[in-house]
């Protein structure tokens, strides 16, 4: 074993580092993510049954999921579930809610302005920035398609 060159060390690290269990993680993500989507669908039916308009019902579904994820984060339960569910809870809107709430909880000790206020979007910031940026890009492409190509 070559422990004195960078390449040699890289090879050793690669050989001895455990692999992430992709199949197991994917199955768990599929099940948990699926359950979240199923519960969202059930919520939609619930709101429609309460005679709320389709458009408002859809907004309410999002808000409800955000609230539940935020509450579970504050109760210290979200991260325990996410250890198993992984992308299943990270990808839906629940993951975004958790990233904002968890950062808010953490930064609270540094004050409401320079702590919580300044740091609340540290984790979710990239999603907000690149989410909006890709939305704009998609809008431009759609505009070109709609008014120029057609």
């Amino acid at each position, binding site marked *: 074993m070559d422990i004195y060159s*960078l390449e040699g060390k890289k090879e050793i690290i690669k050989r001895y580092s455990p692999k992430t269990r992709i199949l197991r993680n994917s199955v768990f993500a599929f099940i948990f993510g699926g359950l979240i989507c199923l519960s969202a669908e059930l919520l939609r039916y619930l709101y429609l049954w309460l005679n709320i308009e389709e458009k408002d019902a859809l907004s309410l579904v999002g808000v409800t999921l955000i609230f539940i994820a935020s509450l579970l984060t504050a109760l210290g339960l979200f991260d325990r*579930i996410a250890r198993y569910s992984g992308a299943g809870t990270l990808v839906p809107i629940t993951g975004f809610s958790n990233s904002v709430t968890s*950062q808010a909880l953490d930064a609270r000790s540094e004050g409401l302005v320079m702590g919580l206020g300044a740091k609340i979007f540290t984790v979710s910031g990239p999603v907000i920035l690149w989410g909006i940026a890709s939305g704009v890009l998609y809008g431009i492409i759609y505009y070109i398609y709609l008014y120029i190509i057609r």
Partner: protein
Amino acid sequence: MKRIKILNTPPRFISYSAVGGREEKRGPLGDAFDLCDESDSFGQKTWEMAEGEMGRCALNLALSKCNMSHDNIELLVAGDLQNQCVATSVSLGSFGAPFLGIYGACSTCTEALLILSSMIESGAVSTGACVTTSHNSAAERQFRTPLEYGGQRSPSAQWTSTAAGSFILTGDPSLLSASKYGAVSISDFMIGRIVDGATSDATNMGAAMSFAAAQSIIEYFKESDMKTRDFDLIVTGDLGKVGSDILRAILDERLPSASSRHLDCGTLLYNPKRQDVHAGASGCGTSASVLSSYLLPRLEEGELRDVLFLSTGALMSPSSVLQGNTIKGIAPVIHLHSDA
């Protein structure tokens, strides 16, 4: 250049203590800790201050065990994992002792002990203390993601321990009678070199540090008059499972007699079957608390005679890793000898 410094008047451990949190209490060494707070908060409002309070408790416990007061401490060498070592400087100020704050990442414990040893050897001080702390929640906040963030950890990731170790060393033989301890001394040490860990993956720090540990062990035995068979154990700080596997594979090839004597504090602190710690413990409190809860009592009783002890440090910051720099490792060595 001779790198091993032999101490003519080996400083002795006249007291030591280990303090931990919830996971440490649940681990195999839980009952050997002097104090554990299962809330992890140590009565403080923030995790950062909890880390400082833990260090203060550890030093107070060590002082009370050898019936000494703050005034006996001529030098305090201490460090923690936080930016600017703030936990240590905020909490240990109340002792009023001359203070050297050091940062060696997870190698801080050995670094502190060898600095204090050489100060005692030089005659600059006769009695001093070392304190090393790390706190899981403070470290997660600083180095990784918010505490309640729901992410999956890599199987090679380690769990920063909420632990502190404190040691009181003296070169003054008259103090030995007041303490029930005193059989263990530091007979020589070797300051570590910075070794490239060849990865910028902060979830695989054990692997990054393993090369520094391997080189330190190989270089120590190349220069020392002692052979590997003269040592009961060769103990590394916090390589965890992955780093230990790499170190043993390297030693099997280059120094097989050292490989069979190897133990790692990072794999001793927790029970991986019951505790969700992935590759084991990390953080500078790991080697400090295992030294005072597991190794020193065994040395004191004479169950172990000679132990080579190397805390391993991963030198990095969140920015350095994001900028693509590799993690550097360091492994300073001390030789613990027991007269019991």
